[in-house]
């Protein structure tokens, strides 16, 4: 289970700085328009008031123009039942936002430093969703933007995928050696050790197609050749990869010449994958969709116990998917934090919760480091595992939109 961990990106904050603040005031939403939002400390104050008393929900700004510099937006939902979030946009890019807005909650605020130009406050669900907001003065330095930070994270994620496939090559070579030696117990153990590398990056399978093969031909589909289960076989190609080896080691409990051939073939295909991923590039939204996709994998194949039909090491794969999702999120985190620190922290918190739950199944003497995921365990525990994962998946599924818009 020990994996070379990639280095986390240190967030070098640029000119657009967003800090989280909870306004201390109660329902004080009185206008500061007379002073054009200027406050003695040099921070301009802008009130965003959401109200739904006159039929359609409204999103009102006061004032709608301030001088360049730090600006605190305080959002109060007085009575708008149809608005739950507010974003500050420029050129359709998100600079800051607040979610979980509802009538009756205390006002919330965010502060951002803005250069001169035209911005929009976006209130999805309001009668008028976009309201212009003007900042007078010099334009901001565009360096170090959120978008640049996200792109940097996506590039670094590519390096992470490379480390995983490199480690996977070692893992499947160890599996092949154990199989060749005829030692069933050693081969079972090596199987469990090799699995997590693939599970961490299996969201990227769209790119796992060998050059020259059409996407519809499984002969060139490395995901098929490496990770296909018995339930989804293509008769034209046959069964290859991890799960065919798993069937021999855990189902038939014997190593045959065919097992050795499968293990050698697996090494060959994983080596091809290792070379292939070096050529792949990722966009920030690939990371966001990939993180949510890995948790979908957990829900559909691991919690159901379908992935590891013979070895029942589904919790090992679960951990692999979860780690892969967390890595993808970690590379987006510096950029996401500038947009919405509260949302970013919440997702981080949900990762921690799911990890803590999964940690209760770790056993140092278990295959792959976890208890065996038996039908009995599934019956008693799948519900809470599934609900924890679903909460995380739901939060992650909203990221792609933010990342594309950032």
């Amino acid at each position, binding site marked *: 289970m020990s994996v070379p961990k990639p280095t986390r990106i240190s967030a070098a904050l640029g000119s657009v700085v967003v800090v989280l603040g909870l306004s201390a005031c109660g329902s004080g939403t009185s206008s500061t328009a007379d002073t054009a939002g200027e406050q003695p400390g040099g921070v301009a104050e802008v009130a965003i008031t959401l109200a739904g*008393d006159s039929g359609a929900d409204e999103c009102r700004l006061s004032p709608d123009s301030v001088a360049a510099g730090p600006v605190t937006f305080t959002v109060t*939902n*007085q*009575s*708008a*039942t*149809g608005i*739950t979030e507010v974003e500050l946009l420029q050129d359709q890019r998100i600079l800051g936002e607040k979610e*979980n807005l*509802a*009538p*009756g*909650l205390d006002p919330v605020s965010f502060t951002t430093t803005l250069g001169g130009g035209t911005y929009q406050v976006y209130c*999805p*669900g309001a009668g008028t969703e976009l309201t212009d907001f003007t900042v007078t003065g010099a334009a901001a330095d565009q360096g170090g933007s959120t978008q640049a930070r996200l792109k940097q994270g996506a590039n670094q994620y590519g390096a992470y995928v490379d480390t995983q496939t490199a480690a996977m090559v070692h893992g499947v070579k160890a599996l092949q050696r154990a199989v060749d030696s005829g030692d069933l117990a050693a081969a079972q153990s090596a199987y469990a050790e090799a699995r997590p590398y693939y599970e961490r990056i299996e969201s990227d399978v769209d790119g796992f197609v060998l050059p020259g093969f059409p996407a519809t031909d499984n002969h060139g589909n490395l995901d098929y050749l490496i990770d296909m289960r018995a339930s989804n076989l293509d008769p034209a190609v046959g069964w290859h990869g991890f799960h065919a080896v798993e069937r021999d080691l855990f189902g038939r409990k014997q190593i045959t010449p065919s097992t050795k051939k499968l293990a050698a073939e697996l090494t060959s295909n994983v080596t091809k994958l290792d070379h292939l991923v070096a050529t792949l590039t990722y966009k920030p*939204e690939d990371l*966001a*969709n990939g993180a949510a996709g890995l948790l979908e994998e957990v829900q559909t194949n691991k919690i159901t116990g379908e992935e590891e039909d013979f070895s029942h090491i589904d919790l090992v794969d679960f951990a692999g998917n979860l780690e892969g999702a967390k890595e993808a999120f970690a590379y987006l985190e510096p950029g996401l934090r500038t947009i919405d620190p509260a949302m970013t922290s*919440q997702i981080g918190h*949900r990762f921690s*919760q799911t990890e803590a739950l999964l940690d209760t199944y770790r056993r140092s003497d278990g295959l792959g480091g976890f208890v065996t995921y038996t039908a009995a365990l599934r019956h008693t525990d799948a*519900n*809470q595992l599934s*609900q*924890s994962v*679903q*909460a*995380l998946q*739901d*939060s992650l*599924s*909203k990221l*792609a*939109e933010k*990342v*594309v*818009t950032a």
Partner: protein
Amino acid sequence: MDDANESPAPVVADGSDAQPPTNSRRRRLSRRGFVAGAGAGALGGVVAGAGAAAAVESGDSGGGSSDTIDLSLSVPFYTGLHQAGIQTPPQRYCVFMTFDLVSRTSRDLQVLLARWSAAIAQLMAGRTLGAVQPPRAGSVASDTGEALDLGPSSLTVTLGLGPGLFRPDLGLSHARPRLLEDLPRLPSDNLDPATTGGDLSLQACADDPQVAYHAIRDLARMGRGVVNTRWTVMGFGRASAGQGQSTPRNLQGFKDGTRNLKDPDEIDQFVWVRDDVDWMAGGTYQVARKIRMNVETWDSDPVSDQERVIGRSKQEGAPLTGTAEHDTPDFSARQGGQPVIAPTSHVALAAHENNGGVRILRRGYNYTDGINPVGQLDAGLLFIAFMNAPEHFVRLQRRLGSADLLNEYISHIGSAVFAVPPAPRSGHYLAEGLFD
């Protein structure tokens, strides 16, 4: 399951929960500009949506007229008095779900209650929870969409707070409603932990089942990470009558709710809390019981015996001492030395005359869970009742569970109790007073 509580002859329309007492004798529903789809005609009694966009007061529903359905009607949420879905005349369908709080901070609960409140207001008005088709690439929809264009369908969503919310670690124990605690173990209880308890309840009732289910689904989705789903029942065929409604039948084929509380003054007396914590003023308590019926056994019982078990005639629903449904049962009448209505019949044990005057407001629905492992129909009654002291249910069920002839044919397999806070005013949210 049947027949607690005498009601006077049906008076005017109902009292919508939602209204201040002065208005409480009129059904206040507003009609949106909604045209029912072609499919609506397939439902008996459906009034195809009139296009009137203005809110109307349909102060109607005297007699049996409120048994018809108008899918364009909506019920107000922000009344500042009682939550809807209690005194509101029962809609045709209801989805009930309970949840466990999994977050350890009261702040998460607070935000969820505020967001649920705003969402419930949207849903009851027949609106979506944000975009069904979001404009931006890569977006997930904020509303799942299946209730789009179905109309408000008189949806009501009623929130309950379970005893578990007031445990010490959340810091809310000072605000615990005075009478809120887990129900004691009761005679004949056969409770399955999988259909028992919950820290929060949502009861979504509507005249279109998809509108009710959509509400529960999207509210559950909104709660993920803060609450886990615990148990749910999808109810159909209201098994209790509200004011102005004819008495419906439960799955045993008997009228259910003949003597239900209907008169607003009686509801004031027996349903809304008095002398409770401040934030519960205008609130009530909800008891939910999942009651499985042994359908096959019941169906093979002669009707004469079924009538003896219930204490009423099957077709008319008259007490065995009378001839018409609303005749008052005479529990002292004897024939050949034997009581005409058996003291262990369901009616006799549940009647307020025999329970120190205790009455509760029932709002049950029939349910089915399909077929059980031995091939029998798995069906029964989702019993929901509102009262100003859960002890009133306990008192009734102690007697019923001990002696009811009906116990041979039913089994209480699920149970939960909740405090039901009052409705918020505009700009506020359900149970806001908890966090003061």
